[in-house]
């Protein structure tokens, strides 16, 4: 069986598992802080959390192989840190770090996380928003010392007393974490630290594209059943056009995410991630706006499931750099490369 088949099979299995187990009820329990780890155990038994690990005897699956996995996670607003753990285990295996049991938290370097590595090997600084910190066995992040960047891992037990619960838009378990004075379990110099930010951006872009598909699907179903003026509201052209627009945005996000996976697999970190996260963040805004417009008042109630997806769209749009951040990065790169390079790099 080739790698693509393994990846497709896993995405299919994951889709089935999450379809059966995740719904508004289980998401509500997660957001109320009452989720247990049983679903995580099933995920571990599937082996899916390890597929991006690389090693001497195992190349692991690449980003392109795993694109659909991330989309499935977004589509179901998966109530577990599988995306983070997939990428974190990849980073740890690339850095030859021992990989612990259990889920991992990955600190988004763009989210007010200015963490320094001091001369005595201790961390200094706080990360304002770490998703899944309270679930993780280890936390993985990026620290700086002068111009150098380091990947570090910290034992959850070492920071357990320093987690300050906060509510993100997505309301997955999220904490502010003060790392000051903590000695990391491991510190590894990174020659190119941009791969962490870019990897996170592509991961979120793919999850956004999955969640956009879900919102469009919910909105189409609703438009075809809700009747006003004697006919389904989906028969009104004004709504059809908005939903078509949402569908275009979702399609662009999917295309951009998949394109970026290829770039990451080729060790091109900036441009692909910028294209993906810019496109997906714009889609997140537009698709959630249109979704809510179609649903009307029922869509903004707690009772209706729509908000589990739209709040995550807003959350993921803001994480790992929003459309302003990435368009500026890409624009500066294009400007610095100069006019002559533009078309060659677009067609490279």
């Amino acid at each position, binding site marked *: 069986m080739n790698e693509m088949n393994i990846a497709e099979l896993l995405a299919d299995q994951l889709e089935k598992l999450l379809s059966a187990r995740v719904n508004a009820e289980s998401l509500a329990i997660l957001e109320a802080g009452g989720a247990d780890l049983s679903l995580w155990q099933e995920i571990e038994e599937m082996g899916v959390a390890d597929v991006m690990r690389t090693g001497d005897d195992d190349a692991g699956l690449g980003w*392109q192989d795993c694109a659909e996995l991330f989309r499935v996670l977004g589509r179901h607003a998966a109530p577990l840190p599988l995306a983070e753990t997939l990428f974190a285990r990849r980073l740890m295996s690339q850095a030859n770090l021992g990989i612990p049991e259990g889920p991992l938290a990955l600190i988004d370097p763009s989210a007010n996380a200015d963490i320094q590595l001091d001369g005595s090997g201790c961390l200094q600084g706080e990360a304002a928003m770490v998703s899944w910190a309270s679930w993780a066995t280890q936390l993985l992040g990026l620290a700086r010392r002068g111009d150098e960047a380091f990947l570090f891992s910290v034992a959850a037990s070492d920071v357990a007393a320093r987690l300050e619960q906060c509510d993100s838009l997505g309301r997955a378990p999220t904490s502010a974490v003060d790392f000051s004075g903590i000695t990391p379990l491991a510190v590894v110099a990174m020659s190119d630290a941009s791969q962490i930010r870019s990897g996170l951006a592509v991961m979120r872009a793919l999850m956004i594209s999955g969640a956009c*598909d879900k919102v*469009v*699907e919910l909105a*189409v*179903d609703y*438009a*075809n059943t809700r009747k006003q003026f004697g006919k389904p509201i*989906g*028969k009104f*052209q004004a*709504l*059809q*056009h908005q*939903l*078509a*627009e949402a*569908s*275009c945005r979702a*399609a*662009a996000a*999917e*295309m*951009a995410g*998949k*394109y970026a*996976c*290829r770039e990451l697999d080729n060790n091109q970190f900036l*441009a692909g991630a*910028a*294209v993906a996260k*810019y*496109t997906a963040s714009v889609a997140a805004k537009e698709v959630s706006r249109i979704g809510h417009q179609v649903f009307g008042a029922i869509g903004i109630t707690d009772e209706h499931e729509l908000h589990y997806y739209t709040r995550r769209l807003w959350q993921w749009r803001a994480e790992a750099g929003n*459309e*302003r951040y*990435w*368009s*500026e*990065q*890409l*624009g*500066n*790169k*294009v*400007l*610095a490369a*100069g*006019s*002559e390079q*533009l*078309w060659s790099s*677009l*067609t490279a």
Partner: protein
Amino acid sequence: MSAAYRFTPFELPPETVALRAEVRAFVQEEAKQWNGWQIGHSWTGFDRELSRKLGERGWIGMTWPKQYGGHERSALERYVVLEELLAAGAPVGAHWVADRQSGPLIMRLGTEAQKAKYLPAICRGEAAFCIGLSEPDAGSDLASLRSKAERVDGGWLLNGRKVWTTYAQDCDVMIGLFRTGFSEEHGKHKGLSQFLIDLKTPGIEINPIKDLTGESHFNEIVFDNVMLAEDALMGVENGGWAQANAELAFERSGPDRYLSSFPLLPLALAKLGESVDDPSIARDIGAMVAELTVLRQMSLSIQNQLENGETPLQEAAITKLLGTGLEQRMPGLIADIVEAQPLRRAGDTLSEALAYLIQVEPSFSLRGGTNEIMKMIIARGMGL
């Protein structure tokens, strides 16, 4: 999933690299004689001399069989040639429609005699085609068209009126859609047929329509008892609607649906220099480049599906809607960023190109089907 589109990333094969370099070098040389106003025209610029040169190099009808003058190269090699020409704003209008639509249609449905008559001339860059669809009372609702072709002794008799036919005044041949069978009351999509019409046939009167730029690109064409031979029928009698629709995935997903304003961007970058003080300019540039990248991937993905015999009409409609949206926004946005006056003044390529494109960009979301029609197609595909 409600609308599972197929957008799979697709990479051009390495054998296209040398071809790209060859086309780029050719275009760079030719471009020395184009001013900004001409560059702004891109694929609506009509230059028979350029088309002949491209024909000589084997860059028209690239995928067609050699027996008809083609070059039996892949659709992906053709894509490379197209995007290199468009990126520079080359005036490829004299062969664009024939290469994109009319030739492939003739190849698919034409008789042996029709293929032999038209295809080699198209490949040489010597046969310019136009498409006769719209009529005064049939625009977006094309199937309500009324121009008729009646079967008579020895052929067909055409009467009626076409409008908005691009470059009819300069073209050699029109492929026109005419009513042959049922009247509108019997189901308006039935009873339409396509005809190959030599525009020099007696009874055809072509009246150029001046547009808001002061130039005349489209035309009104009056058919007054125009007699065509039996073999002017293209494909199946009364099967014209399906035939015309099958072309649309090709027509709507190509690089001409997102690159029409592209030549402005390198000109703007050259003017801005290597860095900018205002971060919003970098963001605008980055956003345009990101959109171009995604559209190119969408377009290539569709190209690959077409190559495999699929007809991704929904995907093509999405690509056209997003692509023309970008090429419509670019002229105004770039003019603002570089603070350039859109001005026809010799020597200032960017200003001249802006001057043309700002005036014609409203047409980008009209030609090839309006935004509203694209959204209708997409919504239908979504199950609405």
